[in-house]
């Protein structure tokens, strides 16, 4: 089973969980219809599009409304801590959530009780809080962008907002940021660093870089990081080894972008529509 957890920017959404359906750019779960324009919903939609290609079942998702006040995030941490053991996940992806060390640790302690740990992926707020809690090594894959890589490399920063300037200004020297993130134990075994060039890393060693096709507009489009995380998660669940999954997800994300001929004003749902085509072309 493949699981995904994160928040949805709608305060009226209670904690819901189940297997969603993707229809007309909306995730349908229970009586809720959630637009896929951004964040965790975009990640889930990309995962579903990927799983369609490989004829795998849709993921089980755990969602809650939160617009930043933290109430929904707290409920989600608590629910996951209490219920994670009831399911047997092979892959689990944690995404947007209000970073809170106590809540994150409760979830991690719950997962530690499993005899077989799922392949754990974190991005966005959950990645921040895992780093802050000192548990990056407990995870298997982080998918930071360049600003977030500088944050992982900064052993003192509790949030990307506080990344020190000398690291932020060093973004062209990605290899030294990668090295520093591992030196301070703030990176899991696998990193997929998203940027103008994508970097696939295993324990500090750069396994591959992907920079074709180049779609400069990508950086401006909200959700292009979420789509890559959704795809790589689904590919690992579909049986791809992590390294190959990272490379294929990075290439497919770029190709889906190129097929959409975007401008910096393009919205992510337009690109998500091209994911199956891109994956089919690349996976042959």
């Amino acid at each position: 089973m493949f699981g995904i957890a994160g928040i949805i920017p709608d305060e009226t959404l209670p904690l819901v969980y189940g297997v969603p359906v993707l229809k007309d750019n909306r995730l349908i779960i229970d009586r809720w219809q959630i637009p896929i324009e951004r964040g965790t919903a975009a990640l889930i939609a990309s995962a579903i599009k990927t799983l369609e290609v490989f004829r795998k079942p849709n993921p089980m998702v755990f969602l809650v409304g939160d617009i930043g006040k933290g109430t929904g995030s707290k409920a989600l941490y608590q629910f996951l801590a209490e219920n994670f053991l009831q399911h047997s996940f092979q892959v689990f992806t944690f995404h947007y959530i209000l970073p809170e060390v106590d809540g994150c640790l409760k979830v991690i302690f719950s997962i530690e009780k499993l005899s077989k740990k799922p392949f754990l992926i974190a991005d966005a707020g959950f990645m921040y809080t895992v780093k802050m809690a000192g548990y990056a090594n407990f995870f298997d894959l982080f998918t930071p962008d360049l600003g977030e890589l500088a944050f992982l490399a900064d052993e003192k920063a509790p949030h990307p907002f506080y990344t020190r300037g000398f690291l932020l200004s060093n973004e062209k020297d990605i290899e030294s940021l990668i090295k520093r993130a591992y030196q301070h134990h703030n990176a899991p075994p696998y990193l997929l660093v998203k940027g103008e060039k994508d970097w696939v890393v295993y324990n500090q060693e750069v396994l591959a870089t992907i920079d074709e096709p180049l779609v400069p507009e990508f950086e401006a489009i909200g959700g292009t990081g979420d789509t890559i995380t959704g795809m790589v998660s689904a590919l690992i669940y579909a049986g791809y080894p992590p390294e190959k999954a990272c490379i294929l997800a990075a290439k497919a994300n770029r190709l889906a972008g190129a097929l959409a001929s975007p401008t910096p004003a393009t919205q992510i749902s337009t690109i998500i529509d091209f994911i199956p085509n891109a994956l089919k072309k690349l996976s042959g």
Partner: protein
Amino acid sequence: MMEWLNKLLPTKRNKKDKTNQSSQKALLIFENTSEVIQAEKILQTQGYKVKVVGPPPEVRKGCDLAIEVPVVEIPGIINLLKTKKVEPLDFISFSEEEILKPVDLFHVKDFGEYLMVRAANMKITVDKRTLTIVNVSGGGCPDVPYLASILIGLNLKNSFPPKEKGHTLCGYALHLAYEKAKELLCSE
């Protein structure tokens, strides 16, 4: 208020402490980031010179902000915030090394018709001709997708500042990017 004053004026203080008091700083600690943003706005409106910073590790819970204020102005500040019902939980003195400074480095990318500004992990992209906010990306806190959903399509000149509706550090970083974009595109 007496508790605050007692904390502010310890019983034993040497001459040097008194001399330095006018330049000493303290941090106001709040329940959550939303209160920090509200308090900052109230204090700035009243002319106080305050700064939003990160609290030292021993009082940090997660996605935290605090407000740096001059120690001598604390009684007035507390009174004001009390009347506005945004009272801090506590205040602490601090050393410069313990305090995290918010990011002050901006990356600007010109796409021709569009301009993208990044502060820390947050990016905002604006149509240069119409000043319409066309995209918001980056970040990982819950108010990012929310702010994106209500900012996209608005005019940079007439939209609300993100910190008015943001609640987290990502929301605050987006606000910094927004202010920079405004400075670059809306100044005469």
